[in-house]
């Protein structure tokens, strides 16, 4: 445990996976690359990769607060620390033996309600496990037995907030985010004391009234009710001491006529000082969004080379279909390109931000738009492989028609929606230096519903779920499928890998089940 604590507090240099025996946080390390240096499982022996264990979550018979059935889909990325794997669904945490898949303990939060759409996992620091619940609570558990240590409220259920994101540990901060877009409420991110849960700071996803950025809203009232939820975990650069995350859609979601302007800081990639919550910079992938294209996708951090110069980079494949490479010290744009073809932007502005085409905003009689509301990518994690220099995104080209239902001067809530349509799924390998697609693997069959994150490894493998219930290993250089396992349903989370007792495991979630694969020596 001491070694893990050192990792979390000192963090690692980029390009290094310092804890191959663990997957200590949502993205494995603070960079968000989802790249592992493990290579026991590799291209030469992938055919022998076999099932080591299966674990199916069983939440019991307690009804879900607020009605409906318990959502048992595993959408979180498991965290592995000291041989124990932690996995979640809303209101439930399980500790599982990472070697055998046997349950160690199960914790149930007595929920008051909230959207039970999914939970993205836990954070672990020393002997405490942290999880957010749909009814707006941050709960701290004893990692030994799952007993509650404390809990604290992180949002207001009465205002239709809920919580789903995996907390992130940065130094002595537990970073939490919030969700909710039924009503017009502001998004924010918080930092809590890891020992007591006390609030250290809160940063709202809107400017201070009176600042130049506040002029991107027609009024203070619109700005203070402008959305910008923070529902995908952050990444962190220890050298720059900057925390990076994305913000979600502005409110009202579809009917944007009451919030003319670019609507900062919704739909932004944000860099904050994690000790103070002070803004360092922002970049806005979707100015004045009216399509629900939350820009929350993982901001992936890596060091690379641009025009022969070493650079500290941040890249995001955004839900709106655009790929961005930024200087992560300054937020200055280096590259903007489409990673799937879209039809909603007129080009990019001087900052590298796409310019929305007014003709493709929702209309009373409909506007045909690609991507659709689900996006060219959604929350499932991408991966960056420093060996290939490629950024991988499990993407979709999807169409729908966006309708405006409420043309009042002051719409509220959503005021419209999309309907339709057609979708095809593909795995895109993006060259970060050019933005060009190095290879594209179109998934055959049903094109909708790819909700698998990605994992790349030093074993020259790229792991992904396809839309046909397969867990697939591909060649990261060519995109050729090399191995697969047919699961009972499609992958629903991000795969992870770790090594224990000299055995490398790869674990993936599909529906209510975790599958543990390993290379078993005889």
């Amino acid at each position: 445990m001491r070694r893990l604590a050192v990792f979390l507090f000192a963090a690692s240099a980029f390009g290094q996976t310092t804890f191959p025996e663990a997957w200590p946080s949502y993205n494995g390390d603070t960079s968000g690359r989802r790249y592992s240096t493990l290579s026991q499982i590799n291209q030469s022996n992938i055919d022998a990769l076999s099932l080591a264990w299966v674990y199916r979550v069983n939440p019991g018979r307690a009804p879900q607060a607020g009605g409906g059935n318990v959502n048992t889909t595993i959408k979180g990325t498991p965290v592995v620390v000291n041989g124990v794997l932690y996995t979640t669904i809303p209101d439930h945490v399980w500790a599982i033996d990472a070697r055998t898949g046997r349950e160690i303990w199960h914790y149930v939060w007595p929920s008051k309600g909230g959207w039970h759409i999914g939970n993205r996992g836990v954070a672990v620091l020393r002997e405490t496990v942290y999880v957010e619940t749909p009814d707006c609570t941050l709960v701290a558990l004893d990692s030994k037995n799952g007993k509650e240590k404390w809990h604290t409220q992180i949002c207001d259920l009465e205002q239709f907030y809920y919580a789903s994101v995996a907390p992130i540990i940065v130094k002595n901060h537990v970073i939490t985010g919030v969700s909710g877009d039924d009503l017009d409420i502001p998004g924010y991110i918080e930092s809590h004391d890891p020992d007591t849960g006390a609030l250290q700071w809160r940063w709202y996803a809107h400017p201070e009234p009176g600042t130049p950025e506040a002029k991107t809203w027609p009024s203070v009232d619109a700005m203070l009710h402008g959305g910008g939820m923070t529902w995908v975990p952050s990444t962190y650069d220890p050298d720059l001491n900057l925390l990076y995350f994305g913000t979600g859609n502005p409110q009202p979601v579809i009917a944007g006529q009451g919030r003319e302007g670019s609507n900062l800081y919704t739909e932004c990639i944000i860099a904050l000082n994690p000790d103070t919550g002070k803004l360092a910079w922002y970049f806005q992938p979707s100015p004045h969004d009216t399509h629900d294209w939350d820009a929350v996708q993982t901001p992936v951090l890596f060091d690379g080379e641009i025009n022969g110069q070493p650079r500290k980079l941040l890249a995001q494949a955004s839900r709106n279909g655009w790929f961005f490479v930024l200087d992560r010290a300054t937020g200055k744009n280096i590259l903007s390109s489409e990673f799937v073809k879209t039809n909603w932007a007129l080009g990019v502005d001087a900052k590298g931000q796409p310019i929305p085409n007014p003709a493709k905003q929702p209309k009373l009689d409909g506007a045909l738009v690609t991507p659709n509301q689900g996006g060219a990518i959604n929350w499932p994690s991408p991966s960056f492989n420093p060996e290939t220099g490629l950024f991988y995104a499990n993407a979709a080209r999807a169409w729908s028609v966006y309708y405006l239902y409420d043309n009042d001067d002051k719409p509220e809530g959503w005021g419209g929606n999309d309907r339709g349509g057609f979708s095809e799924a593909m795995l895109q390998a993006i060259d970060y230096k050019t933005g060009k697609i190095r290879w594209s693997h179109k998934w055959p069959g049903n094109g909708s519903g790819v909700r698998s994150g990605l994992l790349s490894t030093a074993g020259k493998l790229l792991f992904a779920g396809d839309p046909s219930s397969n867990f697939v290993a591909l060649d990261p250089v060519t995109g050729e499928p090399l191995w697969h396992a047919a699961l009972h349903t499609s992958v629903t989370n991000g795969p992870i890998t770790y090594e224990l007792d000299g055995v490398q495991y790869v674990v993936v979630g599909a529906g209510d089940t975790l599958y543990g694969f390993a290379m078993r020596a005889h």
Partner: protein
Amino acid sequence: MRRLVKGVFLLVLGSFCQHAFGQAGPYVRQEVDPAAADRGKRLYTQFCINCHGASAKGTEQGPDLIRSPLVLRDRLGDQIGPALKKLANHKADLTKAQVTDLTHFLKDQVEATAKNRNAEHPPNVLTGNLEAGRAYFNGAGKCSTCHSPSGDLAGIGRKYAAIDLQQRFLFPRRSKPIQVTVTPSGGQPVAGSLERIDDFSVSLRDSSGDYRTFSRDKNVKVDINDPLATHNQMLDAYTDQDMHNVVRYLESLK
């Protein structure tokens, strides 16, 4: 035992909450009584509408009540009642029953806002030009290559509402299965209706009704004929004006 007790408690709590506040939805909120909401609306119209607006979204004279944390946190008047008595220029002498009715009206407005991603009325999509739609159908749209207003599309304007015509023209539902021909290495082609395909296998139902699966590798040839392929490709070609014109034309095919 502790878990069992907790489970029993939740069952009891759930039962109580269903009774008191309604069972569905993401949070146990105050269930709107339509009759009480109607009475509350009359009170609202009489005493509140001038400042808070017709749909409670506020005016220059009074704040938005749908976005009001006080209203959102209220249960059957426990917040609104004291606030009415405390705030200047408010109706302080409403009875408890009247305050409750008022909360039902306001909660109804809140719930309607929270659900307004669903259309109350179908959008009017008949904004295009009929003749331009006919020309596109027979020309650049290539629709007449496969479809005919006197054949498969006869009476289509009677069969579907305009909004559904728009969706079905853009994203037609599959009426015929995808056809596939699989040619194994050194083998004879096998044709049939595609049942399932991924990178590793392809399954079809052949003309005799047999379900057959073939493992895929580089030596197995798979040819797919999707009747909707042209429709999907055309999505890149349609302008919104084309879309509206074609819908107007299709709607005329009574």
